[in-house]
């Protein structure tokens, strides 16, 4: 298991044990973490699972595919540490990961 902390835009946070192999998005949806909608269920088709990855973890979450980058280009409130959480696979190496969800997903 990897502990992942999801911080909402209002500062409230939840830490959840997520099974390796799931994505950061699935960890949120399966536990009803607010702020991650994931309309498309992880097909990288909608950009409604946008998160900000804690700077210290950016490298460990892996490279951003061209598809993900294109989707993020037009997501709301994109920053340098923006990722689509459906594209981050959870592994033991991500134990302790901290992500913040934006105010709204569009």
């Amino acid at each position, binding site marked *: 298991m990897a502990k992942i902390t999801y911080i909402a835009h209002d500062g409230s946070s939840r830490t959840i044990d997520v099974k390796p192999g799931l994505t950061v998005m699935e960890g949120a949806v399966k*536990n*009803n973490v607010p702020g991650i909608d994931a309309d*498309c269920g992880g*097909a990288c088709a909608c950009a409604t699972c946008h998160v900000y990855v804690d700077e210290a973890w950016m490298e460990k979450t892996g490279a951003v595919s061209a598809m993900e980058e294109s*989707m993020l*280009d037009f997501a709301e409130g994109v920053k340098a540490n923006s990722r689509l959480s459906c594209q981050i696979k959870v592994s033991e190496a991500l134990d302790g990961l901290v992500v913040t969800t934006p105010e709204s997903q569009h």
Partner: protein
Amino acid sequence: MSQAGVVIVGAGHAGGSAAAFLRQYGYDGSITLIGEEPLAPYQRPPLSKAWLKGEADAEALMLRPESFYAENAIGLRLNARVDRIDRDGRAVVLGDGDVAPYETLILATGARARRAPLPGLDLAGVLVLRTAADAELLKTALGPGKRLAVIGAGYIGLEAAASARALGAEAVVIEREPRVLARVACPALSTFFQDYHQARGVHFILGAGVDGVIGADGRAAAVKLGGDSLVEADAFLVGVGAVPNQELAADAGLHCNDGIVVDLNARTSDPKVFAIGDCTRRPMPIYGGRMHRLESVPNALEQAKQAAAAIVARPAPAGEVPWFWSDQYDLKLQIAGLAFDAVQTIIRGDIAAASFAVFHLDAENRLQAVEAVNAPQAFMAGRLLIGQRKAVAPDKLRDMSVSMKEVAA
């Protein structure tokens, strides 16, 4: 049963999400989620895609683990059918005679596969694809050396054909219209998808009326076309659209018109009853408020939020641009908007390279819809522009040297 709170009829993507949003929004009354299928809410889109190809397992389909419902005090009643709504008594009556009282009712009854009125469709081996059980039957029927005949060249049919090819089966698609995706996509896209499938071994019989399915030894054996030609196969999939499950609502006197009619709070003609997802006909604010039926997960989620927000008296969520997606082979098709009033079509990108978008503009050059194949920027920018309802420059849209960011600026 327990005290009256929210009762949700239908434990699909819409119903399950409504229960989750109610808890997210702080609703602390009782929630009962009643579903006919044996499974807790799961994702249907992968049934014709990743799941059928064996790339996703049953656990991956589940929206949330079953423990989620107990942890969030959501009473989950599966394998349970609701027979009728007693609006005067504010209760639903279940098939086993049990009565579930409600303060607020949410209908999330979904849609069912349309059954064409043709002989032989009730034979064993003739399948539809709507539920996990349907998908299991289809998957079992496919494999190397098998042949799948699909009646209807819509998304379900084409996705199933692509998945059949991935599993080593043959696939032949029969369609009444002269082109594939005739009801849901523009001609340029139809041509592209037909070519792409043909290049991967899918056979098409277009413009062909189906007379029925012929059996042998009690099992479906061939599709009979007009002119008496036969298409033999091992498995048969009928994908000719969906019908909204509105009977419960209609029988209870709620306003229905090819879908349960709702407003932008997902409220039906009874203020205590909401309806969400595929079973509804809803207003489309971006398109002059006209009423439309949307069969999509994004719509199910949007209406689940509308209903949950209205129930807890939270401000209504911002309107969303409708969108859809489909995966076939290595193609990602993303569609935003609906081309209701389109008078002009603009193609951006390279169709031959399988990376392009088709933009549909109205008479004032406002973007109505975009269909994007492996072109996520065009989809994302298009979705933004459709929501903004402002005119765009057709020449810029067409010009690949002008980035979608500049077009959208």
